[in-house]
Each structure stands twice: as C-alpha cells, then as structure tokens.
C-alpha cells in the first residue's frame, strides 16, 4: 500500500521533467538520426528516404572535409596546449595553496573561462589584427616581420587554437586542482624523505597518479573543441569589413547547409557524424579507464 503510494508519487513528480526532456532532447535527437537518412530540401514538400546517400555525398564534399579537418586540428591542437599547461599551472597553484594570493590565482586563471565568448574573441581579434594589432607591433619591435594572422589559412587556425586554449585553460586548472587535493599525501612525504625534489615527484608521481583526470580533461576539451563555432565566427569572419578568409568548422558548415542551402537532411547527416565522434571519444575514455586494472 505504502509502496504503491510512494511509487505513484515518484512517477508524478518525475513526469514533468521527463516530458520536457522527451520533448526538447530525446525527440530532436531521434529526429536528427531520422533526417540524416532523408533528403529534405526546405523548399520542397517531399522528404524521400535516401538511406546513406547523404553520408556518401558528405565524404566527397570538399567543404565538409575542409570543415572536418579544421575542426579536428583545432580540437586536438587545443587539447595539446591545454593539458600540459593546465597540469603544470595547477601543480604550482596547489604548491602555493597557503599563499595569500591563492584566491587571486584561481580567480585570474578562471576568468577567461567565464567571460562570454564573443567579447573575449573581440579582444583577441584586435590583438591578432594584421594592420592595427599589438601582436604584430610586438613582433616588428623585436625585429620580425608582420604576419597576416587572421588572413592566412594556417595562421588563422592557429589563432583559433590559441583562443580556445586560453578559454579552456582555467577549466583544466580547476579540475586538476581537485585532482591534486585528492592525491595521497603520504606517498609524497615518503618520496621527499627519499630525497626526491619537487620536479621529480611531479613527473614520476603526480603525472601518473593523475592519469584518470588527464583522460577526463582531454575528452572534455576535445568534445568542446569539436563544437567550436563562436570563436571561428568572430575571429575569422569578415575582418575589416572586407570578406576575409573564413575558417570553416563543422557547426558552421552544418548551419550553412541547413539555413543557407536549405538541405536539412544533409545537415542532419553532418550532425550524426559529430555525434559519432563524440561517442567514440567517450567510449575511448571509458575503455582506457577500465583498462587500468579497475582503478
């Protein structure tokens, strides 16, 4: 009797959330999967089923391949910059936990992560500006040559990696700090007694012990890297009013296909590829965690 009553309370209480969830999350996810197998031109009424035709076409589509390459380079590039830097920085901040400025360090490192993407990207856009920006002024001041940062295809991708890393760094540091605080203290004391210095115990003990955290931060950074959009939109869209070079990224290509070329099914297929990448990365993470002797 009582159990039944409790059961019905649970169902009634979770129902509103579940209904919203089904409506704004489950349904559109299933819709994405379904649409990816259909040819839906927004201008026509028919939505014929085309099987894997959209996917086959995508892999011969240079714009998509360009977007996929750029996005992957940005995601892995940002990870390669973020992981070592945030780990090192977190190690120093952790070491100085008792410093008067510990709060300031944490705040300052984290601020780039919380400021809105667009204002932050605006700041960097000026810094990278070829004709007016301080970066080129600095390079020329040091005797180098000015570089067309946001116009050159390779340099503009590097700029985006820089911006993304600057934003992710604070997140990485925060998660690593939690990791450092949870490390067993006794092991480090023992190492110190054996004469290991700070750098040695960092390299030989912290780094391996923090592997699960590294894995987690890597996957989170990669997934958010694959979703990069605002950064490319602001940094590498029409600079100085003139249509400059645009760094094509996955989300941008997807939105263009859907809302400018009106090919919704085709865009959905791109979304499914993005989903597959994310799932693959997550599976790799779980696989690696499991593989480490059930730690």
């Amino acid at each position, binding site marked *: 009797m009582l159990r039944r*009553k409790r*059961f019905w*309370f*649970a*169902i009634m*209480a*979770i129902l509103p959330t*579940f209904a*919203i*969830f089904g409506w*704004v*999350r*489950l*349904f*559109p*996810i299933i*819709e994405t999967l379904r649409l990816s197998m259909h040819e839906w031109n927004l201008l026509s009424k028919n939505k014929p089923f085309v099987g894997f035709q959209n996917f086959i076409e995508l892999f011969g589509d240079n714009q998509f391949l360009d977007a996929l390459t750029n996005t992957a380079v940005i995601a892995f590039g940002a990870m390669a910059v973020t992981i070592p830097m945030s780990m090192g920085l977190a190690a*120093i*901040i952790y070491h*100085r936990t008792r410093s008067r*400025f510990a709060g300031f*360090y*944490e*705040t*300052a*490192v984290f*601020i*780039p992560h*919380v*400021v*809105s*993407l*667009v204002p*932050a990207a*605006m*700041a*960097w856009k*000026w*810094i990278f500006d070829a*004709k007016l920006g*301080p970066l080129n*002024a600095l390079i*020329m001041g040091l005797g180098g040559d000015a570089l067309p940062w946001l116009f050159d295809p390779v340099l503009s991708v590097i700029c985006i990696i820089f911006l993304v890393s*600057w934003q992710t760094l604070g997140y990485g540091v*925060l998660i690593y700090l*939690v990791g450092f605080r949870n490390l067993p203290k006794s092991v480090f004391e023992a190492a110190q007694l054996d004469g290991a210095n700070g750098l040695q115990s960092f390299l030989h003990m912290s780094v391996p012990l923090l592997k699960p955290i590294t894995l*987690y931060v890597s996957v989170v950074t990669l997934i958010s890297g*694959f979703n990069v959009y*605002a950064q490319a939109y602001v940094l590498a869209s*029409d600079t*100085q*009013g003139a249509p400059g070079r645009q760094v094509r990224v996955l*989300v941008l290509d997807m*939105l263009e296909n859907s*809302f400018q070329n009106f090919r*919704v099914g085709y865009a959905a297929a791109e*979304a*499914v590829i*993005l989903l597959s990448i*994310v799932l693959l990365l997550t599976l790799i993470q779980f696989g690696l965690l499991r593989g480490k002797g059930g730690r």
Partner: protein
Amino acid sequence: MSANARVRRSNFLLDVTLFVICILLLTPLILLIANGFKTPQEMLVWPPTLFPKDPTLQNFHKVFTETPLLRWMFNSLTFAILSTIAIVATSALAGYIVGKFPFRTVNVIFILFLATAIIPFEVYMIPLYFQVKALGLLNSVGGLLIGYLVMSFGIFLIRQNVIASIPDELLEAARIDGAGELWIFWYVVLPLLRGPLAALAVLAFFQAWTTFAWPIIVMTRKTSFTIEVGLANFQSAYTIDLSLLSAASAAVMVPSVLAFVLLRRNFVEGIAASGMKE
C-alpha cells in the same frame, strides 16, 4: 635555517611566476576595456597604444544611447533567469526522485537522462529549431528557452548530493510522523540541498548567458538578439568602429566578471563536481 631560506626563496619565485602568468592571461581583457576608452582616431594609430592617451567616455555613451545594447542585455538576462529557474526546478525534483525512489521505471528514466548527457546541443539543434518554428516561437524568449529547460548534469549533480547528504532515516521519520511526500520534499529535502542548488543555479545562469549557436539561429531579428549574437553582428550592423565595439564588449564583460568573482565559490563547486562524474 638555510634550508628554510631556500624554501622561502623558491616560494617567492613561484609566486612571481604565477603573478606574471595571471596578468598575461588577463591582458587581452584589460586591453579590451582600455580600447573602450580610446577615441576612434587613436584606434587607427600605428604602433597601437596599449592604454588610451586621452581617455573618453564617448564610446560608452554612444553604445548605450545609439545601439540596442541594453535591449540585448535585457533579452539575455530574461532568458538566463528563466532558464536558471527551469533547470533548478526540474533538476531538484527529478534529482531527488532518482536518488531516493529506486523503482525500475525511475531507474530507466534516469539512464535515459544520463545517456544523453554527453550529446552536444549542436547535434540536435536543427530539428529543435523546426519544433520551435512550428510553435511560432522564433524570435521570442520562449523559443530560446525551449532549448534550455533541462540539464542532464543538473539532475545528476542533485542526485549525487541527495544520496550523499540526505539519510533515508530522516525521510522515514518524517513519513512516520504522517508527513506527505510533497511536504517532505519541500520542507525537509530542499533546505538540505541549498548548497548544490546554488552551485547549479550559477552554472545554469552562465550557460544561458554565454550560449551562442542556439540564439544565433532562433533569434534573427535585431531587436530579439541576445547580447552575444548582438555583439557578434555588431560589425555588420554598424560602421566598423573598433573603439565602439570594444566599449560594447567591455560593458557586457565587466558585470559578468564581477558576478563571477562574487559567486566564485558556488561556481567552482559546480564545475569541480562535473569532474567527478565517473
């Protein structure tokens, strides 16, 4: 004594290093604010000046009187507050249920919540756009809100806290005293969840405030832009005036940075919890 002195010296060096790194990380934002105070002419000077030679408030005046910046801020604020309320309410109730009512149906629902948690919004936003369109809610805060009513991670965060900090005995005692389930949730459970709910609220607010891809497709009319979309389209809508753009960006950024500094503890708690997902 000398070992002690060495430790102190190395700590001092580390502090200096950290200070330099922190200042470098903040430099782009400081320069952005400084640009907001420059005259349009000064923005075109080569080599660029780092700090304004004769600071002016002209840009800020112009931004607030001649552009819809306040309107965009208002749109963002309304959206962020409503989204926060929705996410906190749904997460609190659903998180409590999945944490304390281990029926099979409830568990299945929880697994569905969890399974979709890693799927990025960008994957399913196009079909969602057509749902919003069918409801006639494009260019409205309501339409924007539809994308941000629930948060899988929020449900998970509350569930973890319910399991860790609310003993079954407490709930049983209330039931024996004849309390109704809803009464227990409201008067016993919610007060105990104040900390995690505050952390979740801060996360949800910042998530909505900074979102970009969703508002850019749903809010296409200039008066309905959110602040992020408005700023991003600033350059095409107005003559390219970098100092004006910087002033607008700074005006948007400063309040959110201040809010963060004030709410840092809550924020850090929420983010740190996200790292403990495994």
